C-alpha cells in the first residue's frame, strides 16, 4: 500500500506536498530531473522576470493536485472506490505527464512538426514525413524505455504502461478528465503557479472550495455541485486572463515567433536531430537527459556566431539580446463567431500589407511575422458551437470537445450538464464568444532601428487604414 506522506517537501504554491516512496524515487531519476532545466513558460521570463519556474516543480504540483482531487472524491462520494494502487497510478500519471516535453516546450514542438511534416512534400529528401514524437507519446516511450525510470517503477511494482495509458487517454475510462479537461490537475497547478511566479493576479482559484464540491454523477463523470458554479466560472475567467497576459502577451509572442524560426534552422541543419530515430538514439545513449533549455541556448549562441546568413544571425542575436520583433499592427475583436469573417478579411489585409511594407521599407520579408488566433475561448468548447444549440438538444453536439467541459451536478444529484448549459453561469453567455486576434510584427535590422519611431508611426497608420472596417 502506498503511503503518500512518506516524504514531505515545501512548495511555494501548495505549502507542504506529501510524496510516496515511489514518487520520491521517480523524482530522483535523471530523466525526471531533466525537467528542472526546462522552463514551464518558455520565454515568458524575458517579460515577467519571476515567471521562470520549471516543469519539475509544476509536475510535482500536478501529482499533488491529482491526489487531492481523488482524496476529495473519496471523501465526498461514499460510492467512489479507488484502490491505493490505482491512486498511485493516477498520481504518477500527474507527476510524469510532462516527462517528454522538449526544451522551450511548445515552440520547439511546433518547429519539429513543421520540419518533420515537410518530408511529405515533393522535392524533400526521403519518402515521406519524418516520424517524430509528440511530447505525450515521448513521455510514454520514456516510461517504457528509460532503464533507470523503468527500474524504479519495477521496484515499486508499478505497471508503466498503465501510467502512460492514463495521460495518453488510451482507452475508455471514467476519470480521464482528471488529466485532460477544462478543470484538470494540470491546469489548476499551472494557473496557481503562474500567478505566483509571474506576479499577476489571475490565480486566485478557490481550490479548497472546489475540492469540497467535487462529486461523481451517475455515469461516474467528475463534476461539481451547483454551489460551486461561481468558483468554476471564476476559474475559467482566470485562465482566460492568464493566457491573454502571459502566453499571448505581445512581447512573449514576438520572442517565440523568432525562436521558432531559429529552432527550424537548428533542425534543418542537423544541429539537433529531433526525429523519432534521433530521439530514440539520444535516449539509448543517455543524452536525452541533457537535452534542455540550456543546450538549445548554447546552440543558438553558436549559430549567432557562425552563420553566414544575415537574417538568421539577426534572429539568433535578437533572442540572445532580448530584442524582440516589434508589434506594428493589430486586429483585436471580442465577440461571437460572426466576427470570423471580419477576422479572415483582416488576415488577408495584413498578409498583403506585409509584402508591401517589406518592399517599401526594404526589410527582408522573412523578418515580418503575422500571428493570428482564430478565436481564443473561455472554455475548451468555445464559440464554434453556440451553447444555445446544445441546450436546445439539436443533436449537433461536438461531443469530443464537450466531454472536456466542467460539469455541474443537477439538483437531484444524479445527472450532470456542462457548465455552458446552466442558465445562471457566466459561461452560458460568454462561452459563445471568443477573442479574435491578428498581429503584425517586424524584427528590425540594426540599420533600421534608429528610424524605428518614424517607421512605427508610418506602419501603424498603414495598418490602421488597412484594418479599418
Amino acid at each position, binding site marked *: 500500500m502506498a503511503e503518500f506522506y512518506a516524504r514531505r517537501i515545501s512548495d511555494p504554491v501548495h505549502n507542504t506536498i506529501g510524496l510516496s516512496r515511489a514518487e520520491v524515487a521517480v523524482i530522483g531519476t535523471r530523466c525526471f530531473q531533466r525537467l528542472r532545466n526546462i522552463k514551464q513558460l518558455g520565454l515568458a521570463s524575458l517579460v515577467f522576470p519571476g515567471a521562470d519556474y520549471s516543469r519539475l516543480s509544476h509536475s510535482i504540483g500536478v501529482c499533488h493536485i491529482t491526489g487531492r482531487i481523488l482524496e476529495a472524491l473519496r471523501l465526498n462520494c461514499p460510492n467512489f472506490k479507488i484502490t491505493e494502487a490505482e491512486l498511485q497510478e493516477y498520481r504518477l500519471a500527474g507527476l510524469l505527464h510532462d516527462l517528454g516535453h522538449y526544451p522551450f516546450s511548445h515552440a520547439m514542438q511546433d518547429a519539429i512538426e*513543421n520540419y518533420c511534416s515537410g518530408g*511529405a*512534400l515533393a522535392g524533400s529528401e526521403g519518402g*515521406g514525413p519524418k516520424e517524430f514524437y509528440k511530447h*505525450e507519446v515521448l513521455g510514454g516511450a520514456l516510461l517504457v524505455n528509460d532503464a533507470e525510470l523503468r527500474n524504479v517503477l519495477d521496484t515499486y511494482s508499478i505497471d508503466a504502461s498503465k501510467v502512460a495509458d492514463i495521460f495518453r487517454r*488510451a*482507452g475508455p475510462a471514467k476519470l*480521464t478528465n482528471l488529466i485532460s479537461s477544462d478543470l484538470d490537475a494540470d491546469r489548476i497547478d499551472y494557473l496557481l503557479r503562474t500567478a505566483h511566479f509571474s506576479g499577476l493576479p489571475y490565480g486566485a482559484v478557490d481550490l479548497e472550495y472546489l475540492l469540497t464540491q467535487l462529486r461523481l454523477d451517475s455515469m461516474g463523470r467528475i463534476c461539481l455541485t451547483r454551489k460551486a458554479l461561481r468558483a468554476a466560472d471564476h476559474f475559467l475567467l482566470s485562465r482566460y486572463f492568464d493566457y491573454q497576459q502571459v502566453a499571448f502577451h505581445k512581447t512573449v509572442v514576438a520572442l517565440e515567433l523568432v525562436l521558432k524560426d531559429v529552432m527550424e534552422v537548428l533542425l534543418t541543419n542537423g544541429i539537433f536531430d529531433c526525429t523519432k530515430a534521433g530521439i530514440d538514439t539520444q535516449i539509448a545513449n543517455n543524452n536525452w537527459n541533457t537535452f534542455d533549455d540550456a543546450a538549445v541556448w548554447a546552440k543558438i549562441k553558436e549559430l549567432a556566431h557562425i552563420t553566414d546568413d544575415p537574417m538568421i544571425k539577426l534572429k539568433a542575436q535578437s533572442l540572445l539580446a532580448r530584442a524582440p520583433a516589434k508589434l506594428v499592427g493589430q486586429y483585436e475583436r471580442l465577440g461571437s463567431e460572426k466576427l470570423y469573417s471580419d477576422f479572415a478579411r483582416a488576415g*488577408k489585409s495584413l498578409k498583403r500589407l506585409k509584402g508591401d511594407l517589406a518592399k517599401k521599407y526594404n526589410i527582408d520579408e522573412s523578418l515580418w511575422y503575422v500571428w493570428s488566433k482564430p478565436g481564443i475561448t473561455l472554455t475548451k468548447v468555445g464559440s464554434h458551437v453556440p451553447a444555445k444549440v446544445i441546450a436546445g438538444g439539436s443533436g449537433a453536439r461536438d461531443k469530443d470537445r464537450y466531454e472536456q467541459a466542467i460539469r455541474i451536478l443537477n439538483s437531484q444529484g444524479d445527472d450532470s450538464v456542462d457548465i455552458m448549459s446552466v442558465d445562471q453561469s457566466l459561461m452560458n453567455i460568454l462561452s459563445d464568444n471568443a477573442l479574435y486576434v491578428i498581429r503584425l510584427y517586424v524584427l528590425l535590422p540594426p540599420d533600421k532601428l534608429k528610424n524605428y519611431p518614424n517607421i512605427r508611426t508610418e506602419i501603424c497608420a498603414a495598418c490602421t487604414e488597412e484594418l479599418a472596417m
Partner: protein
Amino acid sequence: MEIKLVVLKLFLDALGVRGKITTVDDRKRVQKAVYLGQLTVDLGYRFGWYLMGPYCPSLTRDYYALAAELDAGSDEYKNKSLNDDVRKSLKSVAPLLKPPSDVALSQEDWLELLASTHFLRTVSRLDHEKTRSTLHEKKPHVAGCYEKAVSLLKDAKLLN
C-alpha cells in the same frame, strides 16, 4: 502558412476529404479521416479516446488554423504537392473511407466506426470480443457494422 498546415491540407485532399469544418459532422469526418490516413502516412497527430472515439486536440487546433489561413486567402499549398510515396500510400487507404454499399451509415459514422475499432484493438489493446462489447455499450449507432469494419481493416492490412 506553416508547412504542417500545408501538408495537412494536401493530406486531406489526397484522401478525398473536404477540409470544410462548419458542422460537427465535418469536424468528425476530418478527425477520423486523419486518424485512418495516418495508419499509412504518419503526420504525428496523436489521438486519445473521447466520446466519439479517437480524437486529437492538436489536430482540432490545426484545422481551425488551416481554415483561418484559407479564409485569409493563403494559397501556398497550390504550388506544393505531396511526394509520390506519400500520395501512393494515401491512395491505398482512401477507398476505405467511403462506406461500402451494404453499410447504412453516413460517411462520418462509418469513419467513427473504423477509427474506433482500430483504436480499441491496437491502442487500448482490447481483443475482438471486448472491442465488440465496448462498441455496443459506447457506440450503439454504429456497432452493428463492427464485423464489416474489422473485415475491411484486415483486407487493407491495417489490422492483424
